[in-house]
């Protein structure tokens, strides 16, 4: 309370009723009451839990995490077998959650931006088509989309055997083979492989480490380059052209790697009953990923559309009046303003997508909920510990994402002076 009245001198005595009727004390009284209520509620819940667990002869401990898991997980990013601990199984699940969320966010952004822009395009037909897409996906539960896409993949696609022989089916683009159990896609393989980096049981190919290193280096060099261009522009009024250096930074290293290590696409091939070579993507994963991307993409389309519409047309006109070319108008005037509107809801859509990935249970994809909150909880009978741990992990992911959002928001906020 900022408007605290000065204490009057003719009423120095303190009466009990002032706790309620005096503005100085009232909020304090109220807060103390709420604190007591909340604390007693928490105490009541904990007390009940302890009593119930004692009655069942259980206690709360997390030792089960270090016992043998004994179940298999179809898709794993780091080595795992059923002799590993429940903790490792949970980490596999967490990685699966993060993988499908990450890939889903990328695909949803691409779909959403395309659909949002096309909805505003001058093309009448495509604008209508996109409207239909957005409305249909937004108004029907995500679970239905996951189940439908899973059913399409498992019911309509052929068995691997159907690709056999001369009169067998052709692969999509000659490299992708959707089957009723998995989708076989090609993998990038090196002819002269530089080997792998072995950390414990984890084997990371040097190739990917080199590639990521080069990518980071390219980004850093580009930032330095742009800063330098900015400095030169401020000193001399002339901006050195940088685009071809940027292009080279991102194009030359991959091409060099390609030739240096003799990379080639390993197309999956039918041997016996199954495809080998390449990567077999589990149908549950593909269904979840596609459904999450299409569903979230519809929401992102609306966000993008609103963001573009939110930038006043006068801004474009003003930029043109200053003599800016269309693409510089876009980069320097429109996008910075539109992004300020687009990015916060976009990131909360990413958050939703990550949380919605827990619907993996519907198609049996082993994510965090399937491992820690599913099989582990059932096998060990430690539902309380498993579910609490799972909720905390989800909470940590969410808080991390929204923390990033807050940093971004503070950076692009309108500076009001």
């Amino acid at each position, binding site marked *: 309370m900022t408007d605290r009245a000065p204490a009057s001198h003719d009423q120095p005595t303190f009466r009990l009723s002032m706790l309620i009727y005096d503005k100085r004390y009232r909020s304090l009284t109220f807060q103390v009451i*709420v604190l007591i209520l909340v604390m007693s509620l928490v105490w009541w819940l904990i007390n009940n839990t302890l009593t119930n667990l004692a*009655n069942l002869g259980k206690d709360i401990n997390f030792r089960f995490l270090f016992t043998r898991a004994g179940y298999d997980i179809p898709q794993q990013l780091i080595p795992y077998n059923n002799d590993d601990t429940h903790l490792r199984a949970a980490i596999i699940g967490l990685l699966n959650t993060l993988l499908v969320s990450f890939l889903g966010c990328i695909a949803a952004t691409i779909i959403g931006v395309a659909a949002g822009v096309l909805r505003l395009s001058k093309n009448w037909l495509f604008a209508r088509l996109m409207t239909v897409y957005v*409305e249909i996906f937004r108004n029907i539960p995500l*679970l239905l989309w996951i*189940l439908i896409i899973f059913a399409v993949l498992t019911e309509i696609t052929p068995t691997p055997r159907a690709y056999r022989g001369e009169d067998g089916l052709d692969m999509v683009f000659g490299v992708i083979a959707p089957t009723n159990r998995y989708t076989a896609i090609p993998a990038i393989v090196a002819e002269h492989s530089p080997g792998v980096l072995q950390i414990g049981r984890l084997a990371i190919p040097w190739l990917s480490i080199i590639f990521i290193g080069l990518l980071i280096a390219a980004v850093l060099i580009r930032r330095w380059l742009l800063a330098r261009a900015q400095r030169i522009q401020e000193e001399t009024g002339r901006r050195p052209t940088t685009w071809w250096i940027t292009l080279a930074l991102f194009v030359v290293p991959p091409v060099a790697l390609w030739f240096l290590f003799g990379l080639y696409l390993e197309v999956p091939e039918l041997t016996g009953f199954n495809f080998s070579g390449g990567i077999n993507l589990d149908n549950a994963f593909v269904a979840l990923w596609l459904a999450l991307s299409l569903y979230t993409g519809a929401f992102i389309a609306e966000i993008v559309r609103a963001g573009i519409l939110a930038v006043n047309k006068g801004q474009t006109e003003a930029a043109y009046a200053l003599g800016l070319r269309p693409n510089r108008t876009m980069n320097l005037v429109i996008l910075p303003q539109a992004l300020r509107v687009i990015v916060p809801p976009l990131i909360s859509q990413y958050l939703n997508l990550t949380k919605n990935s*827990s619907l993996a249970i519907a198609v049996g994809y082993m994510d965090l909920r399937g491992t820690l909150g599913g099989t582990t909880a059932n096998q060990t009978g430690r539902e309380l510990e498993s579910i609490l741990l799972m909720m905390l992990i989800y909470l940590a992911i969410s808080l991390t994402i929204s923390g990033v959002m807050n940093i971004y928001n503070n950076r692009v906020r309108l500076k009001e002076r």
Partner: protein
Amino acid sequence: MSEIHAESVAYVRDTMLPPATPPDRQVGALRWLRENLFSSWFNGLLTILGIAIIWFLFDHFWPWLSHSVWNANSLAECRQIIAEKWGEGASGACFAVIRERWHQYLFGFYPRAEYWRPVMTMGLLFIAITPVLFSVNPDIRRWVLAVLGLLTMILMALTEVPDWSAVLMFALFAVALLLADYAPQRLLVFTVCYPVVAIWLLWGGSLWYPLLTFAGIAIGYLAARAVPKERSGLALLAGIVAAAIWWWLLSTPVADLLSEALPLSLPRVISHDFGGFLLAIVIGVSGIAMSLPLGIVLALARRSDMFLIRVFAVIFIEFIRGVPLITLLFVASLLLNYFLPPGTSFDIILRVIIMVTIFAAAYMAEVIRGGLAALPRGQYEAADSLGLDYWQAQRLIILPQALKISIPGIVGTFIGMFKDTTLVGLIGLFDPLKGISDFVRSNFEWKGIYWEPFIFVGAIFFVICFSMSRYSMYLERRLSRENH
């Protein structure tokens, strides 16, 4: 210059030319096509792509839809009929499953003889919400009531309810129509009473228990009114204490007594019999009705000056928003018996409703907080300068504007929550999407049927969610003051 005479200035026309018709390429369909579909090569490419997509969809789905079978007893029979009619290898939809099992998709395992109860509850729901949702325009109110009444009567005819219930429902709609025209405020009284009626009709048992439970609110209100007006804090306390005493000590014995004296009772239906859209709508509507007030309180708490209140609100909201709904539902189904005193077990639907309400309220709080933050500072200052206290200012000045701003977000949350009711299938309830469909497919006759139930359920969800979003647009238009 000098040779130009005044008379020779004949170049200025002194009459208007009659407007000429534009060239053929600039009018009608041709112009529309040029502007909207083929304005540039890229645009033309898009158009061709769009046509290709539409053709692809049509080509794949039309034969399947047009070959649909509505009368059959099993999937095998369906396939046989299709093969007979359209030749070997033709594929077609088998909507016979919907024809045979639609009642399970709508009501789950609710006893067939009691179908009049959920249908009547739905009809009454329409009557109850009309004066709230369409409070301003009597024309719209009349139309909405008439259309919804017709819908209810059609559903009653389809479910073959007893005649007396149809007549009763018809009479109730007639009364509601009259009231809506002449005394809409009276209809609000019914809205307030509706929860009691709905709970009684749906779950059955004695009317007295829900009635007297809700009477606690009235008793609390009366107790608060009995305290002199200037002592508002004391009045609140008195109200809460009176209601608490009623609920803890008095309501059950009084209800026992009354139900012995006058047994107003319907056959009981247990919660596990609820399923299909009945379940989704029960959870959705109660979640919507309860999450809005809770969300408002949470939003106000989060913007409060009091440190502890704010901290508690932030912790609660961030925790709920940080975890997926499905984990909360697992808490409701697996863990709640750990958290409650030994021996307590309460209804699974009630547990789910509570969890869904809490979940939606946290999202609602953030939406409303956005609305509150968007209000100009001057509005708060104006309320202060009028000498209003905190609650008066919120009720009369701040909240109406903040809620108006946040309508799209609020309705978005509602839609999201209604769609999320399908998740209860994952904790073993019979939601229309997975629970009932799995149940239908577990039967030998319908093994392997996927698309038809998906289409049926998806279409109903689409209609409900789409009309909610259209309603929100109507509300926005009605409440917008910019152009008046």
